[in-house]
């Protein structure tokens, strides 16, 4: 019958294909699969819709330095008077008295007139940056010391000082000369910050946490156990297939439905945020890297959790009772990883490593993310717009909450590799444990 000798692998992958295909078809016939996938899609779509709505709305522009007002009532905004050297607090002195007289400019010109133009690297020590676009620092009737309030010898600049505190934490301080980058464009900043924050939060909490934990909980816990309870496992085990293989192939079948689902949702998210997100280009191609990391991290998380929950199902009829506290633990770890990404306890979780992939890739794709958050939290250093009087711009606080540094102290690329390897090892370990449990299980 055999014309050419088949390798062991050939018959192995035939069995694998059969079980994977069987598992996929089995999922297809279950209502719960569609309910779970549909609910997951709806929940994420809801957030996408809110995101689109937010991005379509205008963010209030704030005159951070207050120079758009005509304080002295002479018809010229303070900014214009300051720039031209007349006294903004006296209606006796205004550019209209010049020869020839200068027409007053509209107040809107003095809102958002001095945005961020920072160019800094993440190195330690002092760096000088920033440029006074509107000239309210550089203008001539200030003294040299008034122009250099941060006393570094460069007039009208901003000092970013990065240092290490005695406890080992990185401390960043900002010393700005008065009137430099003090009136940034809130709309542009907030739009960008919300966009970045959206990608990170939906990636971390929406994809890795919610999809990553609940899809395996619903779909992987019963992969072996349901068959054992209903007695249909007998058909599969009466064939020359090792139980460890059955365990693996069933899990692959589960991944066969979960991974495409995650990929499709990831593409959807990338498209929505790419087209709707802020930016000059038609589409934000740079974000695709982060979306790739999100999809990849979710795939790894569903792999590890799938193996684990499947193994818990094999271990015990009510494996779910073990899985539920574990899922709650992972939820706590996810929140912890955003607050304290260095915590050692995170290394004992799955989600800590998966989130590290996203953080590392975000660091590579958006190298200026740190500076961006920093400038938003500084926000021009003036009187803030919110009720607490903080000068930070809207969107910077959630962005800084949702983004964090990979806590290994390695480079971004190395962290990605390490996290991926750890997740793969976790998956293999859970496979072996699950396979061994299954092998030693007596099935009635």
């Amino acid at each position, binding site marked *: 019958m055999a014309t050419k000798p088949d390798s062991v692998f050939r018959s192995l992958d035939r069995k694998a294909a059969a079980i994977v295909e069987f598992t996929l078809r089995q999922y297809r016939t279950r209502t719960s699969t569609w309910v779970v996938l549909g609910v997951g899609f709806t*929940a994420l779509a809801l957030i996408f819709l809110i995101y689109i709505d937010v991005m379509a709305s205008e963010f209030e522009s704030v005159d951070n330095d207050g120079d758009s007002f005509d304080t002295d009532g002479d018809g010229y905004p303070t900014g214009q008077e300051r720039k031209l050297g007349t006294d903004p607090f006296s209606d006796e002195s205004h550019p209209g008295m010049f020869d020839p007289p200068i027409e007053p400019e509209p107040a809107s010109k003095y809102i958002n007139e001095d945005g961020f133009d920072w160019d800094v690297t993440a190195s330690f020590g002092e760096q000088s940056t920033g440029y006074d676009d509107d000239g309210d620092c550089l203008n001539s009737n200030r003294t040299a010391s008034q122009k250099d309030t941060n006393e570094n010898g460069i007039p009208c600049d901003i000092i970013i000082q990065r240092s290490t505190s005695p406890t080992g934490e990185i401390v960043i301080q900002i010393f700005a000369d008065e009137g430099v980058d003090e009136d940034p464009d809130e709309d542009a900043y907030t739009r960008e910050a919300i966009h970045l924050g*959206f990608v990170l939060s939906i990636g971390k909490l929406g994809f890795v*946490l919610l999809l990553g934990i609940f899809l395996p909980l619903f779909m992987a816990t019963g992969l072996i156990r*349901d068959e054992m309870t209903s007695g249909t496992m007998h058909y599969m085990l009466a064939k020359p297939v090792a139980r460890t293989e059955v365990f693996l192939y069933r899990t692959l079948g589960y991944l066969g439905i979960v991974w495409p689902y995650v990929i499709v949702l990831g593409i959807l998210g990338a498209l929505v945020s790419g087209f709707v997100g802020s930016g000059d280009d038609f589409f934000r191609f740079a974000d695709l890297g982060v979306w790739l990391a999100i999809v990849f991290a979710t795939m790894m998380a569903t792999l590890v959790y799938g193996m684990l929950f499947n193994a818990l199902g094999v271990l015990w*009829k*009510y494996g*779910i009772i073990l899985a539920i*506290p574990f899922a709650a633990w992972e939820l706590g770890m996810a929140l912890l990883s955003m607050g304290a990404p260095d915590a050692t306890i995170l290394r004992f979780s799955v989600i800590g490593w998966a989130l590290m992939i996203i953080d590392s890739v975000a660091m590579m794709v958006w190298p200026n993310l740190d500076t961006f958050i920093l400038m938003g939290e500084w926000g021009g250093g003036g009187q803030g717009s919110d009720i607490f009087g903080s000068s930070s711009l809207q969107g910077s606080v959630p962005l800084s909450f949702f983004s964090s540094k990979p806590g290994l102290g390695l480079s971004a690329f190395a962290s990605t590799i390490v996290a991926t390897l750890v997740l793969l090892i976790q998956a293999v370990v859970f496979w072996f444990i699950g396979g061994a449990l299954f092998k030693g299980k007596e099935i009635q």
Partner: protein
Amino acid sequence: MSDDAEPLLPDAPIEQEYEPESPVTGKGRLEAAWGSTEGDEDLSATDTTAPRSEGHVFKQQYKPWNGQLNPRWMRNWAILRHHLLGIFKKGHRPWGVPIRLFLLVVFVASLTDVAMVLVSGLIGESGLHSVWGVSRDNLYGHVLGFLPRNMLYYPVVAALLVGGVISEDRQHGTSAMYFSRPITRFDYVSMKFLSVALIQAMIILITLALYYFAEIVSMGRGWAWILDTFPMFLATVISGVLLIFTYTSLGLALSSVSKGKFFPGIALLSIILGTKVLAFIVSNLFDREILYLLSPYDCLAHVGQAIIGTQPTYDQYSWTWSLASLAAMNAIALFTLSSRVSSMEVTRE
């Protein structure tokens, strides 16, 4: 056949007659009916200790029962008792050992504030007491605090309890046993509801009462203090009842739509935690709070904050919206539950 079998049994068969009034002690029968939730099915075979060579043939005698049917509440009480006592001892509904263990752990963990009040009362330091003593925030935290109570304790308890409470009946065919008795479906489902709710109440409300009582005892509070704080204690109890009711109705609705044991538990947990996480993302990032109206926990917390009188987490909408949302959730859940149970096919699945 029956008289043929007699020669096999040299020993005289033990005759036993059961009076209608005698207590139900059929442990073996009940376990067979409910399935052993004790652990693996592999182990259940060890229960049969009697050697098979000796058997008993019971005298088969059918007596039509002419007794008086107990009142309806008494029959319902039997169902309720069956479920509640199962937590404490054998011979009633066999809740799994891990579930009972988890209930114990949560009960003890819920007593942390009681312990702290007692400790601070013993030490007598006012600073410690101001942190742990009865206050609006602490009362709120006891019932509605998110971390850890409404993340790790109460929803998980509800999920574990609700997991098999109806679906297991459907799976094992014990619903047929219920419905062959003089019990209406409404009685059946309301007793299921009540038993799950009461077990949660034991954990949440009893520890709350203990907390309040511990404060009175340890600090020697007088009537004036009690009159002062009782309204907010009562408000906490009400919000606790609302929490238990909502978790139970959501859970039982999920339990009634599914055959499996896994699904209702995970679904309940994913509804409670998932919507909470979504609302968290949206309110943090976009400064829009509308999504929390979909989250049972956030609505409960909001209503609780309003009636207990603590700082609300979400303030873009009035708390009556949360109450309306809760009412809608419960209505949908109870409608699902009642329509599923009334159309449930009494078969073994």
